[in-house]
Each structure stands twice: as C-alpha cells, then as structure tokens.
C-alpha cells in the first residue's frame, strides 16, 4: 500500500474516532460530567488556554529534563553492562528487579528527599525512562558479531577504539528504538509525579479539575498529553530514520 494512502487512512480513522465520540455524546445526551464531547473539550481548551499553557509547558519541561538525564545515565549504564557477556549476565537480575518496580511507588521517596514540585517529577520521568535505554544499549553492545571483535582485536584496537568504531554505531538502531519508548515513558513518569506531589503541570491540573468536577478540563488535559506524546514520538522517529537509515534501508522509507 502506498505511503500516502496509508496516511490518508490513518487520518480517516482518527477523524472517525472523534466523530463517533461526538455522535454518541450528542445522540445519547451523555452528561458532560461523565463524558464530555470532543467539541466541548476543544472549546474548553481554547477558552482556558492561558490557564492550561503554563501547566503544559511545565510538564514538557520536566519530561524533557528527565528524559535527557535518562539518556545520559542510560547510555552510561548500558555501556558498562554491555561491555562483556559476563557483565551482562551478572547485572541482568538486578536490572530486571529495578525495572519491574512500579515507578509510581518511588514518587513518595523522591518527595521525602527533595520535597514536592519539579525535582520529583524530573526524577520520576528519569527512572521510568531509563530502563529501556539501558537494556537496549547493553543488548546492542553485547550482541556484536564475534568475528568483528576478533578482527578489531587483531588490529590491537583498544577497548575505546572498539566501542567508538564498532560497538556504539552498531547499537544506534537499538538505542533509537528505545528512545521512542523511553520518551513516552518519561512523560508517564512526569505526569504521575505531578498528579501525586506538585502544584504545577498537566497532572496537577487534571487532579484539581477532577476534584472540581470540571470534567471537560480533565479531558482537555488528557488531549494535551496525547498531543505532546505523539509529537515527541514523531520527533524521535524522524531522528531515528535519519541516523540509522542503514539498518532498515529501503524498508522504512515505505513505512514512515
């Protein structure tokens, strides 16, 4: 199927989803306390834009800061863990253990340490996003072909030579695949933390709106989150295809 045709159908599906939602709300006379219609949500978004905007910015800010920290620490940790088969096997159980902790559970600890506000949101975003990065970078490094390792060793390449010339470039497709997942996870982490312990951010906005029974505003927050999430995912997809086109060659040109 051609790219344009697929994009057209995707657009049609999205439009159809909102249209069906609108029709159900109007047709069955659903109360806006239960489920506001898309038109109401958009109206709220426009009307309260100046009130919503600082919260959206705050969430984007904490997410991106947490995400950047996750990339830095994730790559560093991934390089260590992936440096050898042994390191990979030894570290794996601990990594899986940390990765399986529900990240909402760490928010109270961060609040205890740093107080409510921006810092716990950034840190929660970071710890939520870091594990896919660590695991993918480590896997990419640990699965380098043995012949390639031998080839580099017979050239007396140092560990750093091997990492820079073979290991890291080879890991890039894994790394960028993880970034797409990680950026949406960072978002989840930031919003969770804002919901629990902050006076700013979309999470906080939705918390307050729901306690005021301002359901259209809750949904407006949700819509903002979805839009930001899609935008971030799209940005990293484009970067991925630019940087690691060699890994997918012609295939992803068609599927983008």
């Amino acid at each position: 199927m051609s790219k344009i045709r697929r994009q057209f159908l995707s657009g049609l599906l999205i439009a159809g989803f909102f249209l069906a939602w609108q029709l159900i709300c109007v047709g069955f006379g659903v109360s806006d306390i239960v489920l506001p219609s898309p038109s109401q949500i958009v109206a709220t978004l426009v009307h309260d834009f100046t009130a919503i905007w600082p919260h959206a910015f705050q969430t984007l800010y904490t997410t991106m800061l947490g995400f950047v920290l996750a990339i830095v620490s994730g790559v560093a940790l991934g390089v260590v863990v992936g440096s050898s088969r042994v390191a990979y096997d030894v570290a794996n159980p601990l990594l899986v253990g940390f990765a399986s902790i529900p990240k909402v559970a760490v928010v109270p600890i961060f609040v205890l340490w740093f107080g409510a506000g921006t810092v716990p949101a950034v840190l929660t975003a970071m710890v939520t996003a870091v594990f896919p990065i660590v695991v993918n970078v480590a896997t990419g490094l640990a699965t380098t072909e043995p012949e390639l390792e031998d080839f580099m060793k017979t050239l007396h390449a140092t560990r750093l030579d091997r990492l820079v010339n073979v290991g890291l470039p080879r890991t890039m497709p894994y790394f960028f695949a993880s970034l797409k997942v990680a950026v949406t996870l960072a978002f989840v982490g930031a919003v969770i933390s804002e919901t629990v312990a902050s006076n700013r951010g979309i999470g906080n906005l939705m918390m307050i709106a729901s306690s005021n029974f301002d359901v259209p505003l809750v949904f407006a927050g949700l819509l903002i989150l979805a839009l930001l999430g899609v935008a971030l995912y799209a940005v990293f997809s484009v970067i991925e295809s630019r940087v690691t086109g060699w890994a997918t060659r012609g295939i992803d040109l068609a599927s983008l």
Partner: protein
Amino acid sequence: MSNHAASSTPLVSLQDVLLAYGTGEKRQVILAETNLTINQGDFIALVGPSGCGKSTILKIVSGLVRVTSGAALVKGREVGAAPIRIGMAFQNPTLLPWLTIRDNVMMPLKIVPPFRQQFQKERHRGFRDRVEALLSQVGLAGQGDKHPWQLSGGMLQRASLCRALVHEPELLMLDEPFGALDQFTREELWAIMQDLWMTRRPTVLLVTHDLKEAGYLADRICVMRAKPGRIVEQRDIGFARPRTVETTFSPEFTTLTHDLRAAIVAVRNASKEAA
C-alpha cells in the same frame, strides 16, 4: 615435510602446541602436538575435516587464543610480544553496514600504528588513494562510495580482502574467505588473491575446505586431523605462478588433490575410530 631452509628466525613457529579447554572429565583437547613453521612470504593452506582446529591455529597465531602448553612464537618471541601487523578476513565479510566501502576498507588505518597517527591528516589524501588503488586491484574501482548492502557477496568479499590488506600486514589470516561463494566467483577471487599476494607478498595462512583452492593458492599445504587436532602431513606445492584455473585441470594438480583427498579421508576415519 617442508624443505624450507630457515636460515633466519621463522616468522611464526608453533612448537609442540597443546590447546585444551576444561578440566577433568570435561577436558577437551582441541589441538595436540602441533608443530608448524611459517617463513616470511609463505602462503600456507590448512586443510582437514571439520573440527580439526584449523581456525584455532589462526586464532593462536593472531593472539586471540593462548596455548595451554608448548610455544607459539612470532618473530622468535611469544605471540603478542613482538609487534606484528595482522590482517584478517572471514567467510562472513563482516563489513560495517553504516560505513561506505571506502570507510570500511580504511578502518585498519584508523586503528593500527603508525597509520593511526596520520589518519586525520591523510584520510582524504594518501590513505584515500591507497584504498582506491586496492579497490581497483580487486575490481572494485568506483565502488568506494557504496554501502555494503548495495554489493553482492563476491564484491563484499573483495572489499573484505582489501580491508585485511590495507595496513600492509606482515601476516594475513584467511578463514575460509571464499567458502560462501559460488564456484565461478570463487575462481575469480582465487586469481585476485594470488595477484594480491604476488604484488604485496604478505605471509598468508589460509584455512579452507576446498582442496582445489588450497592447491591453486598455497606454497605449502598442511593436512590436519581431528580429535585431537594436529598437523599430520605437510606438502610443498611447486606449480609455477601465476596459476590459473587451467592449472587445476593439469594431471599433476589432479594427482595432488586426489592424494590430499585420500589423506583427509584416512585421517577422518582414524579420528572416527578414536572417538
């Protein structure tokens, strides 16, 4: 036996090499009582049944594997002690998919001294010319800007040979480099390999399953047996160079491959009985 009169120290010398993994019940002897002398400029082929430790000899000589006992000497010193440039090519070309063919071939120059120190200065000048010259010698002129996935298996293997030779190695290790190619491509690459060897004269250690290939390329063929692996026969090959595919149809050549085949069948049966 080899009649190479080693007037000076041989380039490589394996003396009574034993290589084993594990201990006790699980002890596995890969190589035993292995003796091999390689002189400067030799072209040696290792042939033998699967699992006879052909590739292991390559790994010992290039310092990737340490011997359990015995001596592995390069230039009269223990492997790794004497500085020596090594080139390597495998059955799988292992070119880096994110680099162009030119950058792939240039990789050793980026890493191996003394080229390493000049790399930033020379990569767009002298080194580039050097790579182009190599590429055209193997019939890849003008392909330097392509990526590996744009080339056929035979062309990738040519590029892999260039990468193995670009840093002027004293020792060239070839681990079944033509094993995955079709017959005609393989014969083409034999000619290219012979040409590269005759113009540059590296010392070559070739591992192969193909007796014709061994006879075409090598000065000396070492027949190996398995369980445990060892060299059971060495044979000097005197056919005039440059050899051609026609050479391989001469009666002398046919006798050679016939004898080699018989020798390998005999050692296969012997190791089956031993197991």
